[in-house]
């Protein structure tokens, strides 16, 4: 299983299909911003999100969206705050802020957010 740092270093992409995002790592989600929706409820009963951890990757289902490529426009990102699996969630240094850009052929570009992107945890 690759770590988030490795994924970013190798510029490895994730995937997306309709309302499902597949990230090539495992971790604990803390916050997702998609358009102007701020999502923090990742419980199994959440109306907005379903998160499924699998061996070496994780899937996020955006229940209220049908096609992410139609909803998230060219310059927009899905922003997430995530803590890598087995890292201390209470150490703020482990809170990774990532920007996910849906691209062509179901590829999901994963970038660490820099200072340019507005992203308040």
């Amino acid at each position, binding site marked *: 299983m690759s770590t988030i740092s490795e994924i970013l270093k190798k510029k490895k992409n994730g995937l997306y299909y309709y309302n499902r995002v597949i990230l090539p790592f495992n971790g604990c989600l803390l916050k997702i911003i998609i*358009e102007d*929706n701020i999502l923090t409820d990742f419980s199994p009963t959440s109306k907005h999100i379903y998160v499924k951890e699998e061996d070496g990757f994780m899937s996020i289902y955006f229940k209220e969206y049908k096609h992410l490529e139609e909803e998230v426009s060219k310059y927009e990102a899905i922003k997430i705050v995530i803590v890598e699996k087995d890292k201390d969630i209470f150490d703020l240094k482990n809170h990774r802020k990532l920007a996910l850009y849906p691209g062509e052929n179901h590829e999901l570009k994963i970038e660490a957010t820099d200072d340019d992107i*507005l992203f308040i945890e």
Partner: protein
Amino acid sequence: MFVSKNFHFLTLILILILVSTMNMFGADSSTVLSETAQVVEPSIFMILPFLILLMLIATGPIFYKHFWERHYPKISILLGLITVVYYLYVLKDSYSILHIFTEYVSFIALLSSLFVASGGILIKVNRKATPFVNVLFLLFGGVIANVIGTTGASMLLIRPFIKMNKDRIKPYHIIFFIFIVSNVGGALTPIGDPPLFIGFLRGVPFFWVFVNVWHIWIPTILAIILAFYFVDKRNKTGQDKITKIDYSGTIEFRGGKNLIYLAGIILAVFIDPNVMSWVPSLSPLPIGIREIIMFGIVYLSYKNAHPDILKANEFDFEPIKEVAYLFIGIFLTMVPALQLISNFAKSNHDLLDTTTFYWATGILSAVLDNTPTYLNFLSAAMGKFYLDVNVQSQVLEFISKDDVFLRAISVSAVFFGAMTYIGNGPNFMVKSISERAGIQMPSFFAYLVKYAIPILLPIYVIVWLIFF
């Protein structure tokens, strides 16, 4: 929002065609003479679509967010269409609808051009965000709003303001930004806020607002900024992190060519047959040369913007689309309300004094669009002297008789736009950009009850007591 991106802009175009056609072939086009042309008074029940829309805007995002986000464009357009059909087929009055639609097109042309042009500009302020620096920033925003409009200033400055405060940002930062930069700041020139611009088009001299309002503007701005300073001083969030950062103190500015587009928009504002006689009127089309230029700037500034800047700004048309959809409903459904208010004001103008003008214009500007509200109350105030708002010389005569009414209307139309999210166009856009940055903004009611009423209302009461 959860609305499909390819949602029916066609519906808007349909309204445009419907209204234009009705106007051109309307049975009673002779009534289409002026703002004060005799129109049949609408039924009081026709304010229901407007009240329903306001109620939905206020409650939708809180109680049925998913439904609202999916369906608000349809609801807004549907409620607007009820008013359109009532006016066209029951009152046989196409003028009122065409007129408000023309104002809507101007409103959207200005907002969208400023939104897109400023979206191609990236400002990075590498300074420690202290309460004092924030005060200076907001003050600068308030002043610049008079040069590039409250919308331009809001779009240009909200992102650097959030970035500068990213380690200590709270919703109140955004709310005070809306108070000062998106509203009150722009009370000094006709470019600042649309109602003042309408006044300018009707004959109010360009510098009249500055000369007559600055002494109200300064204490009001200072009072709001003072309130902000004390709130911000108590915010100790992120202090540990901030003290460790080595700030360069620099301000980086990218996308300078878009300043040309912004200048173009400001110049286009004056390209109006009422200001420059050589400018052709495209009437009965609800669009003018000015709007064509502005929409042209939307296209050019987006096409020529640097992709890195658009990416850094996470540029998306959704905030302006949200404003476009909600305000088409607001503009159309508010026609009966405005006409009823106008008729009441005209028939009771002897009873109306400065206090009434100040509060009535203000309260209505908080929930209606402030431009027609301003115009209706200006018309009523001029009615006190048997003068017509459509005759420029009479506007000047009105000002020379007693300008306290115009001062009260001008000040309250601009100031009270800050009372709600729907009081002024940029309020909603600032809210949307902030939410996309991850800031949980207060609901419609929370904004009103927790911020606008406790902070702004006492200041506005003092303004009233001292100046009116």
